[in-house]
């Protein structure tokens, strides 16, 4: 390995770590489109979601796989009346009481997107691809209003990139340059959402020195990351099974 510029050390250094949750979330405005990573409780940036409730931004559009469970986290953000619209694949699960209430009362707009299309629309935004075709939803209610096109005799629908103003993601280990690894099934939506937002905020389970992460193992290179706040995993209680996919 070559000698790092960083270690020559006369100038300032790149450092994406911020002091606290408030700093991590500063500047998120009313009307923002916010991606929230995780699948179930795994990889969910709980502390950032709680922070967003404190932060106060309103009229949010949330992009996430689920629509929250119980009355904490995303569900509490929704209960606080901060969410105008949710784009997700699996709104209704065992614990999605808040979603049910708000949705039935007409206080929440909903866009249902199949899980694979959701992941790919997010990746497309990160990859500079404004649209792509997929066979998923063809011939179903979810294809209504979508443009279709035939390739080699098979019908596909056109899907559009899904951009966000902010992505809130959880990572396992990070360095000051923003490089991230994930742990086991914690990679899920986090790694694609990190690519797709104007600003990516990482809730990290722990900082390590630059160079400590194996370059073959970095899943999200620092180029995609703007801010990091450390929330040690000890503070994170695994909520356990929630049901649904």
């Amino acid at each position: 390995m070559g000698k790092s510029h960083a270690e020559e050390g006369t100038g300032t250094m790149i450092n994406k770590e911020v002091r606290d949750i408030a700093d991590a979330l500063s500047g998120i405005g009313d009307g923002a489109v916010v991606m929230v990573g995780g699948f179930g409780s795994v990889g969910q940036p709980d502390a950032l979601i709680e922070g967003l409730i404190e932060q106060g931004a309103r009229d949010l559009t949330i992009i996430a796989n689920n629509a929250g469970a119980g009355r904490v986290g995303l569900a509490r953000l929704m209960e606080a009346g901060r969410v105008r619209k949710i784009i997700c694949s699996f709104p209704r699960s065992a614990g999605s009481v808040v979603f049910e209430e708000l949705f039935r009362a007409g206080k929440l707009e909903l866009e249902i997107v199949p899980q694979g299309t959701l992941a790919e629309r997010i990746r497309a935004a990160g990859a500079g691809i404004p649209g792509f075709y997929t066979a998923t939803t063809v011939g179903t209610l979810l294809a209504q209003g979508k443009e279709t096109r035939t390739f080699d005799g098979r019908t596909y629908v056109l899907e559009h990139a899904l951009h966000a103003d902010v992505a809130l993601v959880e990572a396992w280990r990070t360095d000051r340059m923003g490089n991230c690894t994930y742990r086991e099934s914690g990679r899920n939506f986090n790694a694609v959402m990190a690519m797709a937002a104007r600003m990516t905020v990482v809730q990290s389970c722990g900082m390590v020195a630059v160079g400590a992460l194996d370059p073959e193992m970095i899943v999200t290179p620092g180029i995609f990351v703007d801010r990091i706040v450390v929330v040690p995993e000890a503070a994170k209680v695994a909520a356990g099974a929630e049901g649904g996919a």
Partner: protein
Amino acid sequence: MSICKPLSRRDLAARIARDIPEGWYVNLGIGIPTLIADAIPAGREVILHSENGILGFGPAPAPEAVDPWLINAGKQHVTLNAGGSFFHHADSFAMIRGGHLDLCVLGAFEVAANGDLANWATSAEDSAPAVGGAMDLAVGTPRVWVATEHTTREGAPKLVERCTYPLTAPGVVTRIYTNLAVIDVRHGRFVVTEMIPGLSREALQAQTGVELQFEVPEYA
């Protein structure tokens, strides 16, 4: 009705597991399909895929060995077998959509003789149905097997001429395993290839919403 004994959910899962050859990459849906994981014969390497970015997950851990970061798409704690790997959601659905899995086994509300599958929404009026990965699995996987009770709890047929529930995907189901029979979907017809012992063709037909063809002896 016959006096024979329908398969239990566990026996149905075991029946399906018997038909999964070594080396297949398989996604198992929620419900009966999930039970298949534990029914795969010891020593047979079948590699299980989970939508949330796992290939090669294993059985549930002992309670004291639960790893909070390791769940499957049903949000149950699992383990990872040797040779397993992790990836993100876009890569996971690239596997699904790209046709790389050999098989998915899904539950169903209804299956039609033309292969249409309905397993995600119980009514077109339900404006907040949870689709998850079902549609991607149904269109992307070359073999879509359905594991289901032969009828609803109320005794209404789930194997029908045309689905009345909203479709998950049209024309995708290739085989159905119920608690009464194994049924191939061929050229718009249901073809029964196996029945539980003691069940008559008439009894099976009576619990089915569309005409069956039979490629089994009258009494198996």
